C-alpha cells in the first residue's frame, strides 16, 4: 500500500455536499483531495441533448446509478425477517460518479420549516409527550442559523420560485407557511401548464394556499454568484433519473464543480473507492482514509480533516465499517450509528380528463404547484394521533412512456383493454403527489448484514424498515384532502393511490433516505454535533441527509446543502483555528 502526501482535507464522495465542501475549503486555502468512487461525468461527455432523452438507457438500465453488482444493501421490513439483497434498484436510486445523485435529481428545492428542526420540543410543547417508541429529536441547529446558508445554496442553483415570507412579511403568491427568507428567490417561478392551473383553481376554491414549487430548473437564463451560466429550461420532461443536456438544471456540474476545478490546491481522483476511515491510536481523531483505485491498488491518503460526503447510505456504512462510534442496537436502544433511519411517506391521487389534454411530455423535474397547508405543524394536530404532515403537489414532470402510462381504476394490467386504456389516457392524466414526513421509530434502523457482502467481500448494509403508526395516520388524514382537490379539477374521474401495507422496496417512491448518522445536542443522542462534527473523532465531519434525526415532509436537498455550508463555515472559521471538539460534551 502506497502512502500519499498529507492533504489538509480529504473529501469522500463528489456530489452536492462534496463539491460545496471542496469549494469552501479550497477557498480557505486548504489543500484538498476529493475521492470519488465513480467516474468523471459531465454534460458534453455523458448526457448531451442528442443522447439525454433515452429512457431505457439512463433509468431502466440504471446508467445514472450505482451498480448493485458492486454494492447494494439488504432489506427486510422487521427484525423477525431475514434481510435479502436489493438485487436491482427499485424504491430509491443512489447515484454514483462525479455529481452524485445531484445529476439525476428533479430539482425540487424546499426548505424545511422552522418547527421541523425542533420537532421534539415543538410537538411536545403543543401536543404532549411523543409515543415511547418514537425516537424523534431536535436537530441541534435552528432554522434561523441555517437561513443564510439556504439563501446561499438557492442563489448558487438559481432556484425559480416565489417567496412567501420575506423577513416576516407574508408575500402574495408565495407559501405563507414557510420560514422567513432574507431575500426573494433568484429567479421567477417556472411557467405552469394546464394541470397546475386546474390545481391552483381547485385548491383556492377549497380555501387553500397554492404556490409555485421552488425549482432548480431555470425559468430564465441565469448566471450564479460563482459566474456559472445556466440556460432556460426547455420543459423536455427528462429531468429526474436523467442528466440535463441543456445546462438548465442546477447540478454540481452546472453550478460549482468547474469553479472548484480551477483551484490549483484541489485534486479530484475518480474511480477511487474509500474502504475505511483510519483512526489515530489515541482514538480522538482520524488520520486519513484508505482507498482502492480501479486497478486494485491500495492507497492511504493521510489528511488533517476528513469529510464524509457520500450518499446517506454510504456514509452510515463507512462509519460502521470503520468502527467509528457504537452501532445502534434496537433491542437495547444503545448505540447511535444506524439509528433513526427514516424515509418519506408517499401517496397520490390521479385525475383523468376526457376532453382536455394534459400533454405531460411538456414537463420539467420541478414544474409544479404546491399546497403546504397540511405540512409540518401548519395545521392543528390535536386529537389526530400523529405529528408532521405532507405537501400536496401537482407536478408535471414527464410522459416517458415506459415509466408513465397511467390508466384508470379497474383497468387490466395487460392485453387489448389495457393497451386501449393507455392510448386513451396517455395525454389526459395528471397526478397529485402527497409527500409526507417520516418520523423516527425505535425499530427502523441500519446495520451491517451478517450474510451478504459487496464486491470486496465486506458486509453490505442492512436496512430494517417499515411504515409506522404515525405514517398511517398521517397519510390517512392528508390523502383524502388531495382527493378533494382532485375532484375539483374538472376531470372525468379520479384514482386514489393510498399508502397501504408494508413498505415495498421495489416500486420507485423517492430517493430521500435519511438518518443513520444523526445530529443532535449531546454524544448520548447523536453521531455528530450541531456542526456535523463527529463526537468521537474531532476532525471527522459527516454531511448529507444521514444527519437528519427524522425526515420532514419535503425533498431534502436544500436542507442537506444548507447544513453543508453551515458545517463548512464552522470548519473554516472555528475548527481550523483551534482543532478540537466544537461543542463540549
Amino acid at each position, binding site marked *: 500500500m502506497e502512502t500519499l502526501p498529507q492533504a489538509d482535507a480529504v473529501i469522500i464522495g463528489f456530489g452536492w455536499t462534496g463539491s460545496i465542501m471542496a469549494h469552501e475549503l479550497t477557498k480557505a486555502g486548504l489543500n484538498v483531495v476529493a475521492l470519488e468512487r465513480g467516474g*468523471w461525468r*459531465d454534460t458534453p*461527455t455523458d448526457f448531451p441533448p*442528442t*443522447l439525454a432523452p*433515452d429512457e*431505457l*438507457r439512463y433509468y*431502466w*438500465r440504471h446508467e445514472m446509478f450505482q*451498480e*448493485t*453488482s458492486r454494492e*447494494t444493501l439488504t*432489506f427486510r421490513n422487521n427484525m423477525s425477517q431475514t434481510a*435479502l*439483497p436489493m*438485487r*436491482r434498484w*427499485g424504491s430509491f436510486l443512489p447515484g454514483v460518479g462525479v455529481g452524485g445523485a445531484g445529476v439525476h435529481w428533479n430539482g425540487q428545492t424546499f426548505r424545511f420549516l422552522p418547527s421541523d428542526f425542533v420537532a421534539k420540543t415543538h410537538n411536545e410543547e403543543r401536543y404532549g409527550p411523543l409515543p415511547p417508541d418514537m425516537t424523534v429529536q431536535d436537530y441541534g441547529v435552528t432554522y434561523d442559523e441555517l437561513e443564510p446558508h439556504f439563501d446561499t445554496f438557492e442563489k448558487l442553483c438559481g432556484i425559480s420560485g416565489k417567496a412567501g415570507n420575506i423577513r416576516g412579511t407574508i408575500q402574495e403568491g408565495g407559501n405563507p407557511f414557510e420560514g422567513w427568507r432574507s431575500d426573494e428567490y433568484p429567479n421567477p417561478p417556472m*411557467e405552469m*401548464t394546464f394541470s397546475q392551473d386546474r390545481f391552483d383553481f381547485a385548491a383556492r376554491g377549497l380555501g387553500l394556499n397554492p404556490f409555485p414549487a421552488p425549482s432548480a430548473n431555470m425559468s430564465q437564463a441565469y448566471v450564479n454568484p460563482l459566474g456559472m451560466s445556466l440556460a*432556460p429550461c*426547455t*420543459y*423536455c420532461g427528462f429531468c429526474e433519473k436523467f442528466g440535463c443536456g441543456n445546462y438548465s438544471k442546477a447540478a454540481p456540474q452546472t453550478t460549482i464543480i468547474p469553479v472548484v*476545478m*480551477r*483551484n*490549483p*490546491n*484541489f*485534486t*479530484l*481522483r*475518480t474511480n477511487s473507492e474509500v*474502504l475505511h476511515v483510519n483512526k489515530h491510536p489515541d482514538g480522538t481523531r482520524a488520520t486519513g482514509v484508505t482507498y*482502492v483505485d*480501479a486497478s*486494485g491498488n491500495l492507497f492511504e491518503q493521510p489528511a488533517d480533516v476528513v469529510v464524509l460526503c457520500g450518499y446517506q447510505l454510504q456514509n452510515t456504512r463507512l462509519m460502521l465499517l470503520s468502527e467509528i462510534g457504537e452501532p445502534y442496537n434496537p433491542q437495547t436502544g444503545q448505540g447511535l450509528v444506524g439509528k433513526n433511519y427514516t424515509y418519506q411517506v408517499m401517496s397520490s391521487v390521479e385525475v383523468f380528463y376526457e376532453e382536455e*389534454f*394534459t*400533454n405531460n*411530455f*411538456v414537463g420539467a423535474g420541478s414544474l409544479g404547484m404546491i399546497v403546504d397547508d397540511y405540512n409540518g405543524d401548519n395545521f392543528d394536530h390535536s386529537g389526530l394521533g400523529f405529528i408532521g404532515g405532507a405537501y400536496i403537489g401537482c407536478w408535471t414532470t414527464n410522459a416517458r*412512456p415506459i415509466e408513465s*402510462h397511467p390508466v384508470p381504476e379497474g383497468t387490466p*394490467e*395487460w*392485453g*387489448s383493454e389495457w*393497451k386501449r386504456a393507455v392510448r386513451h389516457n*396517455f*395525454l389526459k392524466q395528471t397526478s397529485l403527489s402527497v409527500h409526507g414526513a417520516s418520523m423516527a421509530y425505535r425499530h427502523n434502523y441500519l446495520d451491517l448484514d451478517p450474510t451478504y457482502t459487496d464486491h470486496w*467481500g465486506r458486509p453490505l448494509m442492512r436496512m430494517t424498515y417499515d411504515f409506522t403508526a404515525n405514517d398511517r395516520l398521517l397519510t390517512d388524514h392528508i390523502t383524502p384532502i388531495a382527493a378533494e382537490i382532485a375532484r375539483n379539477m374538472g376531470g372525468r374521474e379520479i384514482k386514489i393511490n393510498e399508502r397501504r401495507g*408494508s*413498505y*415495498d*422496496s*421495489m416500486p420507485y417512491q423517492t430517493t430521500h433516505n435519511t438518518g443513520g448518522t444523526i445530529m443532535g445536542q449531546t454524544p448520548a443522542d447523536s453521531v455528530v454535533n450541531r456542526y456535523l462534527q463527529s463526537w468521537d473523532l474531532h476532525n471527522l465531519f459527516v454531511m448529507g441527509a444521514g444527519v437528519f434525526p427524522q425526515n420532514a415532509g419535503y425533498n431534502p436537498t436544500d436542507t442537506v446543502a444548507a447544513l453543508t455550508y453551515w458545517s463548512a463555515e464552522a470548519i473554516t472559521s472555528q475548527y481550523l483555528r483551534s482543532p478540537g471538539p466544537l461543542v463540549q460534551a
Partner: protein
Amino acid sequence: MLKSMFLSGTALIAFPKLALAREFRGGETWPWAPGVADTPYFGTETGSYLNMAERAFVYAATARLIPSDDDGPGAREADVLTFIDRQLAGFYGRGQRWYMKGPWPEGLATQGYQSQHTPAELFRVCIDAIDQWCATNHDARFADLDEAMQDQILERIEAEDVTIEGAQIATFFDLLKEITIEGFFADPIYGGNRDMVAWHYVGFPGARYDYRDFIHHDGAPITMPPVSLAGRPGWNVDR
C-alpha cells in the same frame, strides 16, 4: 481483517483493470473537448440469445400482453421480439449490473427480484418449463395454442395458480411483462418500437428536447410526429 484481506491479494484478482482511476488536478485542462461527445449508444448488443423455440414463445406471449388489434399496433408491429432478444444477449441478460450473489432463500413480496437466474437464464429455464407444462396439459407448446388459451395460461401463471417445480414462472411473468413494455415504448435504437409505432399510437413526440412553444397549451392537443434519437424518416433526404 480488512488489511489481511487486501494484502493477501485474493480479493484483487476478480477486479477488472478496464477503467483506470483518473486524477484531475485543479487548474489544469478539462477532460473533454468542445463538440465531442461519447459515441451514440445503439442498444447493448446486436447479438441474439433466444433459440427457435424461445423465439416462438416470446413472439406469442408478447403479442398477448400487447396485442395487435383494430385499435392499433402491438408487440408484433413494434418488433418487441428483436428488442428482447438483443437485451437478453447483452449486459441486461447477463444480470451484469445486478447483485447476483447468494444465498438464495425465498424472498418476501417486499424484497423484489430474488431469482438466482440472470434474466437470460430465467427466460431459458421458464420458457422450457412452460412449454413442457403446455405439452403435458394441452398437447401443444405455448406458441401453438389458441389465443384464448394462451391468455388463460398467462393469467394463471400471473396469479400463481400454475406453479412448476424448479422454475420461478411468476417471477418470469413479471419480468416478461416489464421488458415487453420496455420494448414497445423504448427508443427505436434498441430494436423495438419499430418506426416509433408505439409513440405514434399514444401520441408521445419522443426525444425532442424542447417544448417551450407549447407550455401554455391550456388543455388543447399538441400534435407532432415523434422523433427518435436516430432522427425520423421525414428528415431523410429524398434520392
